[in-house]
């Protein structure tokens, strides 16, 4: 059995006994085989001495048991690490930031406490997955949609507090911003409700987000100031119809007005669905459709001449390649836009969109899908399910074995800096990161990388770094990944989310005024969690006694 550093065997044993009294022996895990189930399945350090590993796990069934576990941890100074459904693959999985932590596994807390159809909101516990919520809403005949990330087995709460994103309207696909109200167990075991939930007998906990006074919800996302035990979310009412169209523009530089026009249209709520960028001339599909292309149903065909020009292009551009595209009617860029709403409204929005995009010389327009709701689930395979409010695991085809990928890697780590939502930023990010990746020997780029439009006013320039079975290769990629973080910081870019193994490097980029933000995080940590028991090291926030002693 592993014992947390600095904790005596007697204290650890006493704490485990106390945990058992709270949750029952069945829900305290101490054997190596059981604790191994809390390892990160995609760890680049798997089997290495510095792989971050838990010492035990405890699985409470409700907030009261979480409070009791936290109080015991304070008594014996046991480091805890809270997880929801424990997926988070590519961002650290269910493994702790600090080796020796006892994982507080919230998967058993799987109640959907309330569905408010009129307010279009839900209140859920951390163990509820997107599949669970979707199935439940359908079972009760609700007309509410979920907004989910690609892997539907993730936690609705966990994804939001790790600040994940989805694929419907902008105000729903930012999962943290779509939340309304939290219940949190603080590091001393106290129970807190945020927003209007702080009013006893509140009638508006899921109606109004901020309550009165400082709005503290952000402290409980990507932090270690509390364990979220309930969280409210606003959901999207099922639309009457869905319309998806493409805007194709012919020239390399057209990307700049294409993105600018899209931004105007989405910020004005004229384009309402997930916008997605593709490049037929370079052969790269839209982010949300990648799996459909990997499955081989929609790949861009290319002649040998086209492939040869592509191979000679510099970061996706050469005058000859552009001329080839113009001569053969293959657009440089293809923007997928979509609309949710009544048919007459979305048709008018599409018309207004075309009028704006038509200012780009040579722009071409096409309607791809026109669907009425509810979704015909017998045809769901033809679409990227999350854009229609349906959870799936389909995106794992990106990493799994397919004819396209006969030798899959063991996993991946997401390098995901936020860049401005402009065409110029896409060009610059490609220039900077492709040169860096080449120098570092990182297999991240084929020709050109397109960003994802999860957020309204920024792109995520997301790149998958493979995890292999060879420790030396993984070490090389790990070092390269950290270098990319540093290079991003030098250009004013930073990650939106990262695995524990990179959290120190990422937070180091957020260094304005001699790391004022990090120092503030530490000040809060000392005040809220003086014994430093809760998720030490998460997002590089260490308690006083562990600072600069990261494993």
């Amino acid at each position, binding site marked *: 059995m592993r014992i947390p550093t600095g904790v005596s065997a007697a204290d650890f044993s006493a704490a485990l006994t106390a945990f058992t009294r709270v949750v029952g022996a069945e829900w305290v895990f101490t054997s190596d085989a059981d604790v191994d189930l809390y390892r990160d*399945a995609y760890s680049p350090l798997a089997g290495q001495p510095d792989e971050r590993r838990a010492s035990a796990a405890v699985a409470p069934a409700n907030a009261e048991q979480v409070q009791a576990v936290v109080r015991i941890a304070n008594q014996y100074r046991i480091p805890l690490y809270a997880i929801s*459904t424990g997926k988070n693959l590519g961002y650290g999985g269910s493994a702790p930031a600090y080796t020796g932590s006892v994982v507080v*596994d919230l998967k058993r807390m*799987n109640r*959907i406490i309330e569905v408010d159809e009129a307010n279009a909101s839900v209140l859920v516990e951390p163990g509820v997955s997107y599949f669970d919520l979707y199935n439940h809403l359908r079972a009760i005949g609700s007309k509410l949609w979920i907004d989910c990330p690609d892997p539907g087995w993730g936690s609705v709460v966990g994804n939001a507090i790790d600040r994940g994103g989805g694929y419907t309207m902008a105000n729903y696909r930012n999962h943290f911003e779509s939340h309304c109200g939290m219940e949190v167990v603080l590091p001393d075991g106290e129970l807190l409700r945020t927003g209007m939930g702080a009013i006893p007998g509140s009638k508006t906990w899921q109606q109004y987000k901020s309550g009165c006074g400082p709005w503290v919800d952000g402290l409980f996302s990507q932090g270690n100031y509390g364990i979220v035990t309930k969280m409210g979310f606003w959901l999207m009412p099922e639309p009457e119809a869905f319309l998806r169209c493409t805007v194709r523009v012919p020239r390399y530089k057209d990307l700049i007005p294409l993105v600018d026009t899209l931004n105007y249209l989405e910020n004005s709520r004229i384009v309402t669905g997930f916008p997605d960028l593709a490049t037929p001339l370079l052969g790269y599909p839209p982010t949300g459709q990648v799996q459909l292309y990997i499955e081989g149903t929609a790949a861009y065909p290319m002649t040998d001449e086209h492939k040869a020009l592509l191979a000679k292009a510099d970061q996706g551009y050469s005058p000859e390649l552009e001329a080839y595209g113009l001569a053969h009617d293959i657009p440089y860029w293809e923007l997928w836009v979509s609309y949710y709403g009544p048919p007459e409204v979305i048709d008018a929005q599409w018309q207004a969109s075309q009028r704006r995009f038509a200012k780009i010389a040579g722009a071409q327009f096409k309607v791809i899908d026109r669907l009425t709701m509810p979704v015909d689930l017998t045809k769901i*395979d033809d679409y990227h399910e999350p854009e229609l409010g349906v959870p799936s695991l*389909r995106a*794992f085809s990106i*990493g*799994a074995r397919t004819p396209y990928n006969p030798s899959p890697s063991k996993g991946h780590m997401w390098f995901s800096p936020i860049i401005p939502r402009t065409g110029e930023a896409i060009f610059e990010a490609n220039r900077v990161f492709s040169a860096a990746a080449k120098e570092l020997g990182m297999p991240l780029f084929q020709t050109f990388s397109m960003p994802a439009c999860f957020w309204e006013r920024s792109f995520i320039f997301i790149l998958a770094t493979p995890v292999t079975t060879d420790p030396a290769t993984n070490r090389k990629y790990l070092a390269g990944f950290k270098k990319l973080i540093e290079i991003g910081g030098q250009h004013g870019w930073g990650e939106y989310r990262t695995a524990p193994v990179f959290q120190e490097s990422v937070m180091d980029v957020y260094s304005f005024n001699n790391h004022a933000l990090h120092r503030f995080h530490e000040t809060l940590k000392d005040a809220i969690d003086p014994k430093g028991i809760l998720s030490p090291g998460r997002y590089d926030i260490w308690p006083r006694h562990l600072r600069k002693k990261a494993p």
Partner: protein
Amino acid sequence: MRQSVLLLAMAIVPTMAASAASPDGAAVYDKWCAPCHAPGISHPGTQALKAKYPGEWQGVLRDWKELTPDYVRLTVRQGISVMPHFRKTEISDAELDALARYIARKP
């Protein structure tokens, strides 16, 4: 209309609870395996098995005749390729036994 669904939510729990007397292997399969291993192109597990073992079999886990219960148990707890391992709060030992028997068609 404010609809409290607490009772409905709780009703979901007993079918999957680890302490259930005799877990239903088919239900465990439908919840935990089918999202990746059901028939069709949108299920990566099915596509991966089909790519790894070309032939008449279409890669659907439930139809894999050579699987043994022990291999199912091992794979669920250790993971394979990009499929992660599953914790006991997700699939309990009793549920895993039922699942292994269900997939391997053992009584």
